[in-house]
């Protein structure tokens, strides 16, 4: 089918969603009211690590308005632990059973007529705890003598694997220098403005469940909850409302609460609503993983990186649950980033501490990886006396090498790294900035430049989670692979075009972009296209990979939409050809009409074609179904299982991000000020530049938060210190500097429109770019930067410490 003229795709069309959202007419979880709805409040552990000796709910049951109370002991009877992809899994139920393993872990659920009364009931529940020593430090958790979280595992190591690619020994032999570093990446998250929400109904007469929740996918978790609750999947209907107030990966971790509230509904035989409040969210929802990495690079004096060896220890908190250990493996395919590094040795550990649990947080594994890799690249440059830009240019994969298969099995589809990186340098006037830095340093001012160049993977291939198991272990199970996303396009009896997707958008503007795409395909106006993204596991076409995560909509989602639209188009052309007695190869669809090429006066309006398909079904070509709809659940052919050498194409489309940041550090206060910032992106074909700019600024601000302000902080006893926005510091608009955004477009050959994902983008690159900038600024003070966040307090102390050393 020929390509269509792009009248709408590529334009900054204003979003269709915005007016209704701004007017308060969105349809969010908390807007849903069901008859006889009761309300739940969750009792949570105040201890980081403790045995539960007993729970007395007798007084609480007498509290006014209480319908019922569910405890962990009951949950253990009503459900099984969630399955997870490690050899010896912990027993993770949706509620603590005999032990609590992080502050905030659910211990009981009270259901009452309203939330106030439910919380009054919580006050009356007496829990007897036997506190245990807690462990919060990643490396302490794996030392002998550390408190053990899971007796059935016997250690705090959930997963442990070794990987070899290429020939690291040869790399060491040929190396002229080995540069080593230890890096610590912090625990932070994306704190979506809308928290988790669940409304579960159980009908004891039909034994069926209907569960509304604001889950973002992937729908593998629907299966997981069904398995845990021992219910056939088709007896548990999940409905996700049209509007979700932000997900960023955090809402992929809410399924245990879906299970918990579903069990509460089962217990009372009715409908239970729970809206998570902000304190609950900060204590016990899902954060990104914190990580300790030891990484070393074997290099030549000219800056060529011959090989990389690293040991990375990820912390998933009190339990490990799906999709972990994905945190360690999501970035497998792009482990070597933008560079031609063929020799690798990896040791991966995923461990537990008494902190809250994790889920894929915007960037998922890549910000942790790149913080180590790109800090190390800067350290290599410093040791070799080279410009850090030069070292990067020296090692880049070149534009003529695509598609490029990495040592770890990643298949980079398209890119031009030198061009994009150069653009970032040009946008901050790099040479001039270096000269100004020299001047500033002579005046004693701490000015620094931070550069980074990263590969931005999108469209997860679920195969990567299997890499947590060894080749032999994998052979015992069914292989896992895939990335399918669904779309249904239909034309109604009066010729209106409607699209149904299961992408659960959480603010990305899918309705708008889909309208643009379908408008181009059919030659109609985007405002005439309607889109429904309410996900209903009963009524929608979905698979375990559908949803919005790993930035899949722009590439995988849109490809499914195009394919479904073209199915409909093809059918419409066939019908039109049948009516006009012309060949389909000669037919063209433009401006709402179908006509023979060169004879536009012989045309049929789309509405008429739809009319035939619906109203005069016998006039259709013989054997053709009535109606007009196209369906796609498109999975990219590059989504294969891992091979026997532990290589896997962990994503499908690969973009690129370069950041160039100039900062000044105030030595008296440790405050970081941004002087210049350029952020350059290659997300393939840009579908709506305005939306992409929003994604860039959003991902950048999330990462700015994790670099300077945000952290889920725990004291040595595992007490969470940041359970409100007073202390968990999300940047406001006032903290975000002006950023010059640049783009290049290297279209992906894998997607219908050449687009790649753009939802994560700067979340992967900014933490290390800021780390590099501050490290450069403080280099004259002898300060090393190897961790985040870089609060003023921390920077000031680092400067004082370095002064004392001198």
């Amino acid at each position, binding site marked *: 089918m020929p390509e269509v003229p792009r009248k709408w795709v590529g334009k900054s069309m204003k979003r269709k969603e915005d007016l209704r959202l701004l007017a308060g007419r969105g349809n969010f979880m908390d807007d849903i009211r069901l008859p006889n709805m009761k309300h739940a409040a969750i009792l949570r552990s105040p201890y*980081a690590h403790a045995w539960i000796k007993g729970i007395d709910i007798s007084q609480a049951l007498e509290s006014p308005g209480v319908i019922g109370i569910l405890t962990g002991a009951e949950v253990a009877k009503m459900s099984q632990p969630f399955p997870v992809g490690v050899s010896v899994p912990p027993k993770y139920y949706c509620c603590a059973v005999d032990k609590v393993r992080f502050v905030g872990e659910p211990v009981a659920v009270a259901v009452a007529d309203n939330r106030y009364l439910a919380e009054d009931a919580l*006050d009356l529940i007496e829990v007897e705890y036997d506190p245990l020593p807690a462990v919060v430090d990643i490396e302490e958790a794996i030392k002998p003598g550390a408190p053990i979280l899971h007796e059935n595992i016997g250690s705090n190591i959930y997963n442990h694997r070794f990987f070899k690619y290429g020939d690291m020994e040869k790399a060491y032999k040929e190396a002229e220098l080995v540069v080593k570093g230890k890096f610590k990446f912090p625990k932070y998250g994306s704190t979506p403005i809308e928290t988790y929400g669940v409304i579960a109904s159980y009908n004891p007469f039909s034994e069926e469940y209907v569960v509304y929740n604001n889950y973002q996918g992937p729908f593998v978790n629907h299966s997981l909850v069904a398995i845990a609750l021992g219910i056939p999947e088709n007896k548990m209907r999940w409905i996700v409302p049209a509007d979700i107030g932000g997900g960023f990966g955090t809402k992929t971790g809410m399924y245990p609460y879906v299970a918990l509230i579903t069990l509460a509904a089962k217990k009372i035989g009715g409908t239970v609503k729970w809206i998570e409040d902000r304190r609950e969210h900060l*204590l016990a929802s899902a954060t990104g993983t914190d990580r300790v990495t030891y990484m070393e690079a074997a290099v030549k004096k000219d800056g060529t990186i011959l090989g990389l060896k690293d040991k990375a220890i990820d912390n998933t908190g009190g339990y490990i649950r799906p999709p972990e250990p994905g945190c360690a493996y999501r970035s497998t395919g792009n482990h070597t980033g933008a560079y031609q590094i063929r020799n690798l040795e990896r040791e991966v550990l995923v461990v537990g501490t008494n902190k809250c649990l994790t889920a894929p947080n915007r960037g998922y594994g890549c910000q942790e990886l790149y913080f180590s890799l790109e800090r190390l690249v800067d350290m290599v440059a410093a040791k070799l006396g080279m410009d850090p830009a030069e070292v990067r240019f020296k090692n880049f994969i070149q534009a003529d090498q695509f598609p490029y298969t990495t040592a770890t099995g990643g298949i980079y589809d398209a890119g031009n790294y030198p061009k994009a990186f150069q653009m970032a340098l040009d946008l901050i006037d790099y040479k001039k900035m270096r000269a100004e830095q020299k001047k500033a340093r002579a005046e004693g001012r701490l000015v620094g430049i931070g550069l980074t160049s990263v590969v931005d993977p999108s469209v997860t291939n679920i195969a990567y989670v299997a890499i947590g198991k060894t080749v032999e272990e994998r052979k015992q199970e069914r292989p896992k692979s895939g990335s399918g996303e669904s779309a249904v396009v239909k034309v109604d009896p009066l010729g209106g075009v409607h699209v149904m997707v299961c992408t659960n958008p959480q603010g990305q503007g899918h309705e708008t972009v889909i309208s643009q795409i379908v408008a181009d395909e059919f030659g109609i106006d985007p405002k005439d296209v309607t889109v429904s993204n309410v996900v209903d596991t009963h009524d929608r076409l979905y698979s375990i990979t559908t949803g919005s995560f790993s930035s899949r909509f722009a590439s995988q989602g849109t490809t499914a939409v195009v394919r479904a639209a073209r199915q409909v188009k093809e059918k419409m052309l066939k019908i039109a050809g049948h009516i006009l007695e012309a060949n389909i190869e000669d037919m063209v669809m433009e401006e709402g009409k179908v006509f023979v090429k060169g004879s536009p006066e012989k045309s049929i309006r789309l509405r008429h074609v739809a009319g035939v398909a619906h109203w005069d079904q016998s006039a259709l070509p013989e054997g053709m179904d009535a109606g007009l709809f196209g369906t796609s659940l498109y999975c990219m052919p590059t989504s294969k299982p891992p091979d026997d050498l532990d290589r896997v194409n962990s994503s499908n489309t690969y973009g690129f991000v370069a950041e160039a940041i100039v900062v000044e550090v105030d030595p008296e206060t440790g405050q970081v000020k941004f002087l210049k910032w350029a952020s350059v992106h290659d997300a393939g074909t840009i579908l709506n530049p305005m939306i992409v700019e929003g994604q860039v600024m959003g991902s950048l601000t999330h990462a700015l938060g994790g670099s300077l302000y945000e952290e889920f902080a725990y*004291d040595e*006893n595992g*007490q*969470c210190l940041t*359970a409100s926005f007073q202390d968990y510091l999300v940047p406001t608009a006032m903290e975000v500097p002006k950023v010059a955004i640049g783009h290049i477009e290297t279209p992906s050959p894998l997607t219908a429109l050449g687009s790649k994902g753009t939802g994560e983008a700067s979340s992967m690159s900014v933490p290390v770019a800021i780390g590099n900038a501050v490290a450069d600024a403080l280099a004259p003070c002898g300060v090393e930067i190897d961790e985040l966040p870089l609060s003023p307090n921390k920077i000031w102390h680092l400067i004082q410490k370095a002064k004392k050393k001198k």
Partner: protein
Amino acid sequence: MKIEGTYTFPAPQARVWEVFNTPQHLQEALPGCEKLEEREPGKFDVYLKIGIAAVKGSYKGKMEIADAEPPHRTRLIGEGKGLPGFVKGEALIQLTPQDQKTLISYQGDVQVGGLLAGVGQRMIGGVAKMLLEQFFKNMEKILKPAG
């Protein structure tokens, strides 16, 4: 959180030691202590209503006087649970005579957990210090020589 400091009482060491080991005086001195009952020698059940301004909470717990080396040093161990969370602490208290006065120096650790730790961490250090000072001031009132 580490706590440490000193306080000078206008009373001789033996008298200070005596007061510190008298349950009734401890109850009078502990801020907000409504009940202090000795279950076994040196082990007490405690009921406290402490807080500052509107942030008040009731705590039920235990206290223990351990490792006593009269009249030089002793260890106080305590824990309490309430709706705002729990508090656990331990302090080593040393008494040194200074003429007719006694210098108390204390060194210890206080853990605050639950709700208060999560939403009030910026106040906890200061408030703990303030409550300690209240305790010592109350003790001083008890120790003031009669007449």
